[in-house]
């Protein structure tokens, strides 16, 4: 055995995919840099941010140790518990900023939708993976039901951003499992047709307002259009090279709202310019590529579908967030993955990468 092989096997035994880990750590280093600037050099915030990151890394490491076979056994209890808690949230949840998303567990508040971000793709991957690929119509219908039930419950909270993420994670499993293109085309037209009644009966006023503002942000520059206008000014004024770290006037002088959370991409664009944006996107693409590589090389259907779905969902985060802050998409509360300040999303994402690492290393263990 060569030394290299030896080294690999150490990471293998630790259930860590080294390229993915390095990319994730680089992202976190970037996050620390940008949040430091966006928070106005707030050291207390930085300590909280780094502590959460450390917690998220430990969480990832713990999840990576759980082999996919064990995960499969946990799927049904996790999903059912999640559903129960979602119903619980609607009945006795805690409200914050007009949405009821939290469950008060006495010592801590918990957001069940975060659990569902993992439980839904796992459940669908498990259910579809049990049978042959591509799935039969009955399995597809049941698979859709598994996705739609929690999605609708979360949309009722209301939390459009999370429900989109959860719905897409489930739909990605179905897509990766070989859903026929004809069916995809058919379902897409249904969705397009359903958009109209959805607009009229399915959306809250504040969500409609966001869409209208998105279509013409300048119509209400001091009201709901303010966020997107200030964000575009920040991005645009950054230019190619950016204004320099800690030099972004839009963020440092607080013209940009939600700078350290949902709009952190604007801070990055302002201070590091298009150049910084390209580095960030390259790093994201590397992580996605690595995730899909792991999925393709996974041993079992469950692992493939789950790793693939989690990776594609990771991109949805990126696309929705960047699209939103740059004016391509309406404002939907989705953080920039691995960069935004905020514990819950960071922990959930790293947990997902833990699962992916478990899938990656599980296959190699079997190959041995």
């Amino acid at each position, binding site marked *: 055995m060569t030394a290299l092989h030896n080294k690999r096997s150490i990471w293998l035994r630790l259930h860590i995919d080294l390229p993915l880990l390095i990319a994730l750590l680089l992202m976190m280093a970037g996050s620390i840099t940008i949040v430091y600037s966006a928070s106005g050099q707030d050291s207390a915030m930085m300590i909280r941010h780094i502590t959460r990151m450390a917690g998220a890394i430990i969480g990832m490491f713990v999840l990576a140790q759980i082999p996919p076979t064990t995960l499969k056994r946990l799927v049904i209890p996790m999903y059912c518990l999640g559903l129960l808690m979602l119903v619980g949230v609607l009945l006795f949840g805690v409200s914050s900023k007009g949405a009821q998303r939290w469950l008060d567990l006495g010592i801590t508040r918990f957001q069940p939708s975060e659990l569902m971000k993992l439980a839904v793709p796992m459940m669908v991957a498990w259910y579809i993976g049990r049978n042959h690929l591509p799935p039969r119509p009955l399995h597809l219908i049941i698979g859709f039901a598994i996705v739609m039930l929690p999605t609708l419950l979360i949309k009722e909270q209301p939390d459009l951003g999370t429900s989109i993420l959860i719905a897409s994670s489930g739909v990605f499993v179905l897509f*990766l499992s070989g859903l026929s293109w004809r069916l995809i085309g058919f379902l897409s037209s249904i969705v397009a047709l359903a958009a109209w009644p959805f607009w009229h009966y399915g959306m809250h006023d504040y969500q409609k307002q966001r869409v209208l503002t998105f279509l013409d942000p300048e119509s209400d520059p001091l009201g709901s259009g303010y966020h997107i206008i200030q964000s575009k000014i920040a991005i645009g004024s950054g230019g190619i090279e950016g204004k320099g770290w800690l030099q972004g006037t839009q963020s440092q002088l607080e013209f940009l709202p939600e700078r350290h959370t949902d709009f952190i991409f604007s801070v990055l664009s302002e201070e590091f310019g298009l150049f910084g944006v390209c580095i960030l996107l390259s790093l994201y693409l590397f992580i996605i590529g690595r995730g899909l590589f792991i999925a393709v090389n996974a041993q079992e259907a469950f692992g493939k579908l789950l790793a693939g779905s989690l990776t594609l969902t990771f991109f949805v985060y990126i696309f929705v967030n960047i699209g939103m802050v740059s004016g391509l998409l309406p404002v939907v509360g989705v953080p920039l993955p691995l960069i935004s300040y905020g514990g819950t999303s960071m922990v959930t994402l790293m947990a997902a990468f833990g699962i992916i690492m478990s899938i990656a290393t599980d296959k190699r263990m079997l190959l041995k």
Partner: protein
Amino acid sequence: MLKRRPTIRDHSAEANLFARRAFVGFIFILALVAILLSNLYTIQVDDHQDYQTRSNDNRIKVIPIAPNRGLIYDRNGVLLAENKPVYNLEVIPEEVDDLTASLKSVSKIIDITEQQQADFLDDIKHTRRFKSQVLKARLNENEVAMFSVNQHKFPGFSIEARLARYYPFGDTLTHALGYVAKLNKKELNKLEQQDEATNYRATHDIGKLGIEKYYEPLLHGQVGSQRVEVNNRGRIIRTLSMDPPQPGDDLVLTLDIGLQQIAQHSLKDMRGAIVVMDAKDGGVLALYSNPSYDPNLFVHGISSKDYKALLNPDRPLINRTTQGRYAPASTIKPHMAILALEENIVQETTTMWDPGFFQIPNVEHRWRDWRRWGHGHVDVYKAIEESCDTYFYDAAYRMGITKISNFMARFGFGELSGIDIHEETTAILPSKEWKEDRFKESWWRGDTISVGIGQGYWTATPIQIANATNILVNRGINHPPHLVQVAKKEDQITQLNNEEKPPVVLNNEDNWRIAIDAMHNTVKKTTGTAHRAFKGATYDPAGKTGTAQVVSIAQGERYDADALKERQRDNAIYVGFAPYNNPQIIVSIVVENTGGGSSVGAPIARQLMDYYFAANPIQSSGSKVP
């Protein structure tokens, strides 16, 4: 149900299917990333300039800085209007979330009445956005301290150190200086029309009256500005650059504050007006109207109680020197005499018999002389010295109104004197056209008679009387009256108001001498009406008394001061100059409802001239004396 799927899974086929799907997914992601990037490229590269500008517009604010208002000095350099530092409680309404509630809570710390709060809320509707507005002016030390401790509770409220106008001589100069007070909506609109609004971006006060209003463009100065970086709450982070304001010009007046104070004291509590003019150049040495009021009350917004107190029957707000319309009475007799001489109605040597009244041939009505038994044989000198009415009734009757009206207009009657304050009236110089226009009635011959002694329809302001006398004693040279002589900007000195108007030219220049000599006699001769008042003067004065009827006395009745209500008693008028052979000053005095010009008017003139010649040497009579 016939075709059952094989129970054995084809793992490699499934793996291929998955790999294809994953690949399609990745391609799809790349396409979406390309869309994101192309959009970002548009924003960051194509539209960079636009967003750069908007980013700067966000953070860079230009804050106007008000210029310091020019100071006003008297002719001897005594400061008459200054700028004193005060602390104001100011509010930028746009920065306060709930203004009504904040006003209520701030009024618990600093005494602000509900009326003041309501007024403030009303005021700010008419002002520019994001301009700080004075909520309470002139805080005392205690209030400053109380607010400073609680400042954090009131975003948008702040204590600002400002320079506020202060008039150290108070009511002595009000009608000349005027005052500044808060800029209102109407004035702002006017400034906008004049393209001056930007110059007033930081200015809170504007001249409302007198010199402060007339010379507003000179006194105000040019606004400066400061480019600052602000955060999203408008708080200044740092100053980027500074363009200092240019202070307004300082003004030096022709007024002599000492003489002005004498004028005020001499009138005591009598209603009246005093104008003292420099006979050499028309510069006004004193301009005082009694009663007066404290202009400082207006600077910080006068309370309605104080304002109501000024609306009393004595009408202190009226500037009697330029707005008071009085019958000029006998003070115009010298002018009338010149006209009669010019028209050959009388000669220097001819006399007439005064029986104590004048009658138009074949008319019963008698125009009575002030001396019931008459003046006997009267020539032009005696007519002026003793102020014989009958002589001028007769002369006026023979000249007719048109000649009188045209001639008197050349001395500025019926016209604005052009003094450099806006508060002025033309008063009335009657003429046939005027009467037809005013009363739709034609002019009666009888109307001319009382015009001959400066009564009837004729009214004039004290400044007009001073001006007309100034033209006479200067033998036609016309220096119009003015209050400001010099504007100073740093080292640059600009002479103002030194222009002459076209002179009054007579056919016979000697007629000036006759009128001037007669006015001299009025003081010099023991029989003259102003003789007593000037006994023992160190200079050689000349003058003319006047006693103007306020109500007409019915035929056959006697004027009895005690029987008349105070407001109906005669006005005392005096116009004088000194020295008679080389005039240096002109004094014009009107005292309302106090009776004779010789007993009330002349002694005041004496006080003023005494003061003047104590401070100013008597100039040797140069080429002026013929």
